[in-house]
């Protein structure tokens, strides 16, 4: 079994459900569990080094988001309650980023293009190109840094920014232009389309959609029912309570990690 055996649509469903759960709560235990679940899924499905690097970038971005959001408190009244509130808001944002990073690392964005209905082919392709930018840019940063090191330039600090940014931006522009040319020259947009070996829907894909759906449903009902555990109070600051049913729901999001460990 390999990563391909999970249909891209199942990954979209998983990411949407996990994102919904993160969006609905500021409970630190739930959010922390979501980081763990994301890492578990990523570790069992990552496809190659480029994706691994881009996942690390998303995690770094998430940590930065948490820190920045928490730091916002310095622009207002500084109190324990305010800081805790800001931190939890930031934690939620960071969690959503980590989930997106996982999605980005485990799916082949172009697999998504293949499954899009014919009328949605164009927007799907645009989305896939956008999704592929993160891993491409990360790979490009690594290459350019190394190239500059080779001639004794240390790429660090603001003064050396051009040495890094100029080749990356120029290459990015050239690549985008070359890609547009290539697509046109290879007949993209002629109107007729057929599909090469469409990916089959598998039992694993159904299991992922079902379990992720349950997780999201649990949080949606909790939110609709106004459960206090979703948003622990910060003023006064108390240790958050957790509802066992919601912990189980988050655990369901780890199911993809149990299905189809990627070989190689």
């Amino acid at each position: 079994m390999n990563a391909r055996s999970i249909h891209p649509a199942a990954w979209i469903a998983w990411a949407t459900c996990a994102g919904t759960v993160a969006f609905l709560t500021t409970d630190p235990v739930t959010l922390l569990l979501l980081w763990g679940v994301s890492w578990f899924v990523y570790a069992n499905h990552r496809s190659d080094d480029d994706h691994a690097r881009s996942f690390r970038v998303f995690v770094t971005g998430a940590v930065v988001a948490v820190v920045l959001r928490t730091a916002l408190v310095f622009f207002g009244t500084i109190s324990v309650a305010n800081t805790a509130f800001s931190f939890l808001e930031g934690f939620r944002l960071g969690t959503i980023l980590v989930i997106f990073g996982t999605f980005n690392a485990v799916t082949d964005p172009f697999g998504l293009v293949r499954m899009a209905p014919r009328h949605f082919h164009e927007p799907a392709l645009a989305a896939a190109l956008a999704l592929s930018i993160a891993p491409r840019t990360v790979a490009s940063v690594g290459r350019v840094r190394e190239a500059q090191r080779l001639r004794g330039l240390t790429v660090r600090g603001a003064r050396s920014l051009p040495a890094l940014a100029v080749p990356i931006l120029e290459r990015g522009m050239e690549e985008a232009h070359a890609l547009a040319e290539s697509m046109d020259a290879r007949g993209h947009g002629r109107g007729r389309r057929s599909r090469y070996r469409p990916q089959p829907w598998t039992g694993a894909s159904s299991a992922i959609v079902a379990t992720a759906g349950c997780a999201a449903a649990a949080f949606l009902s909790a939110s609709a029912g106004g459960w206090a555990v979703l948003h622990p109070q910060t003023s006064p600051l108390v240790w958050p309570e957790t509802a066992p049913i919601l912990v189980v729901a988050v655990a369901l999001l780890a199911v993809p990690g149990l299905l189809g460990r990627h070989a190689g």
Partner: protein
Amino acid sequence: MSVALRFEDVTFTYPEGGRPALDDVALAIPEGSFALAVGPTGSGKSTLLRAANGLVPQFSGGTFAGRVVVEGRDTLAHPPRRLADVVAFVGQDPGASFVLDRVEEELAYGMENLGVDAAHMRRRVEETLDLLDLVPLRSRSVRTLSGGERQRVAIAAALAAGPRILVLDEPTSQLDPQGAEDVLAALQRLVHDHGMTVLLAEHRLERVAGWVDLALGFAGGRVRTGPPADVLRELGTGPPVSRIGAIAGWDPLPLTVREARRFAGTAPMPEPPIAARDGLGDPVAEVRGLRAGYASADAIRDLDLVVRGGEVVAVMGRNGAGKSTLLRVLAGVHPPSAGDVRVGGVAPRPGVDAALCPQEADDLLFNDSVEAEVRATLVARGETGDAGRWLDALGIAGLATRHPRDLSAGQRLLVAIAAIAATDAALLLLDEPTRGLDTPSKDRLVGFIRRHAGRGNAVVLATHDVELAAAVATRVVMLAGGERIADGEPAAVLGDSRVFAPQMTRVFGHGWLTVEQVAEAIA
């Protein structure tokens, strides 16, 4: 015979202005031709190739006059996508053309756009995978492929779409000699058996001259069409066999080793020259028990190597033999997993003890002039020194004020080499340094490497270019599967090989490497 591709009085100028890239070009390429575009860098070859499916002017912009007709369709009236069923194009940077992620899907992309039915598509993908020997790569991600693999996948993807005309810009620049031979043989079969038309640009004439039946000779935007021997004679260029043929006055001018042997057989040859092995300095690089690689596999296994000052070592071997990894280890940017690597007695510091010009040379360039590019290296060394000296050394002083982006791929490579050499490291490492270089530029590079080594530096180059190794190397190290399988003087190592022997060895026998040596002997 009907015409596959016709240019009618085409004059084209890029939006930046200046001299026309194509100047009143009129030519017709008959169906079933195997045509070669030949001429110096910047003479309009790539522009003409890109005009064949309308990318010029439809994507480039610029001023276009005249008409290009492909299988009866005017390229101004039909956007490139409307020509995709008859003409396929593979550009200089094969990686840039990839749209999808997996090799197999990349091959199917063109057919999907043309609406080929699923069963037919499946069969054609399998056939094309076989034709270019890509079956082991079928489910790999295109981003993880080596340069040579990318090149074969790009050609396969173009072929799979089933075009009547295939246009290729330097299709063998990253392939090893055997890989290049296989690709050209596959193309010839399509030309002979299926009447496909192939038009390619290539600087490594020794690889292609024997295969083609029509040549387009480029000089300053003007193009002359004719039999390959005539066009090459007029341009004063050609593979080593034609260059020696021109010197010896052979007529008709030979294009292949076979043709040249008919003339050479009649002339008695003196004893071949013996390479001078004196003047070698102290060891610059010392490698002991080296093992290096990536998570998945070792690229280098148990290698010992000593390179002395004054030596020019050519590291050769098929795609994936471990050449680039060895260079990266010597440069100090790839940590060895076992063994000891010393350059100048210490673990190599990149840009100080060893300097490497990587295959993706464009990654280096970030300044707005060629001169500033070299100066950036000097400043990093804390020098205010003379950038001009390095530009002179590589024969690119005339480009000093130009923006690197506006140069041809070959010219940018020379700029990158100058920027790397300006570190003045005692060990200079060059990874595939002749991609996109025309014969005069290559001669200048050879001169530079000789002078650089003559000053006591060591040079190690990884290359597929047999003629470059024959011209400049004092020693050849052959790698296979990460292990050294041969090491010695070029005459011995290259001369013994069926695949890597330079043309002069094939024609005149063991010991003869370059046109200069033979010309001197028969003069």
